[in-house]
């Protein structure tokens, strides 16, 4: 069980943060394009889900999985999207993504007067805290497996 990578997007599609831990295959396109493709895919999935749903939705799209990985999604009412790719054995981690947003992003970036919002987060503190938090998760194993 492992975490592959993590994306953080804002409401305009700007990738605020990206970090990877165990990624075996790159997308084959430059990082900028990969972020745009990921954001576009999530935007389309959200609108697809809202049309398809037989009942009124509360939380909306939660996750999807393929034969090799599972993508977890969490969106705040302000449009900040936290996306984490993990192994298949990982269950719902909505609270983990919420913690990343509320205790890491809001505390270290939003409340920091020197961090300009709407662009990639440069804060080294945020990067290191996020890294140590993800490494401390129970489903993160240091061995890439």
């Amino acid at each position, binding site marked *: 069980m492992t975490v592959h990578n993590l994306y953080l997007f804002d409401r305009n599609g700007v990738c605020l943060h990206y970090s990877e831990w165990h990624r*075996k295959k790159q997308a084959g396109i430059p990082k900028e394009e990969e972020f745009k493709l990921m954001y576009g895919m999530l935007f389309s*999935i959200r609108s697809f889900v809202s049309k398809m749903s037989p009942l009124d939705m509360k939380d909306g799209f939660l*996750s999807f999985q393929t034969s090799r990985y599972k993508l977890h999604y969490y969106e705040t009412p302000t449009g900040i999207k936290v996306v984490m790719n993990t192994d298949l054995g990982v269950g719902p981690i909505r609270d983990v993504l919420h913690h990343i947003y509320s205790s890491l992003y809001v505390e270290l970036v939003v409340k920091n007067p020197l961090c300009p919002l709407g662009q990639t987060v440069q804060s080294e503190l945020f990067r290191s805290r996020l890294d140590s938090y993800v490494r401390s998760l129970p489903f993160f194993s240091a061995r890439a497996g």
Partner: protein
Amino acid sequence: MAIFSVYVVNKAGGLIYQLDSYAPRAEAEKTFSYPLDLLLKLHDERVLVAFGQRDGIRVGHAVLAINGMDVNGKYTADGKEVLEYLGNPANYPVSIRFGRPRLTSNEKLMLASMFHSLFAIGSQLSPEQGSSGIEVLETDTFKLHCFQTLTGIKFVVLADPRQAGIDSLLRKIYEIYSDFALKNPFYSLEMPISPMQVKGHQVGGDTLEPALFIQPSWALGPSWCRCFVGRRRQLCWLHRSLQPPRRLCSSCSAWQWS
């Protein structure tokens, strides 16, 4: 109903079969007096609630019926425009039913193609080698399961999130498709499948009704062909070529279709 719908998508992304079997959606009917405290707007040939969510009526719900009569898109059953009708104080008090709008066939086609692309992007953005496309997509109200065959046909099932056994249901649908559609010599590959008969099919406790692909296309008779040839409705060259072989009747020497 645990299974909401079934979609079959061909390898180009086009929808070739669709089946809806969900329970009626949550609808709210209320009597209103002038002026209406909801803001309605016209969107995509439907009248939707834009603002004023309350009492079970949510933003995005469509006007389904006025005074008990179903509306037809943006027109009432009498042919008047809904927004005009509701703007006139003389028509009040009026009873309006709101609910989630049903998908039109065009929208289903577009959603199927959209899912086909998302499936491919899910595989491209994979951080692991050899990933397939999206197999399970989970939301809080439904779970979408997709099975892609080796030939690129996708079977998509929307079900309740707690429903189990969908994998075997998808394999069973594939089996039915190959038995009744692929083995039908008059079925053209990748073309829409016409579901002609309602036949209940037991799959592990879930009844998949109606199923699928029972009658061959030529058994429907020329009524399914809408071609006008020489100012009369008769079989065009394409549909005539799908007709079964004809034989000479032994008693009256007339050509007979089997």
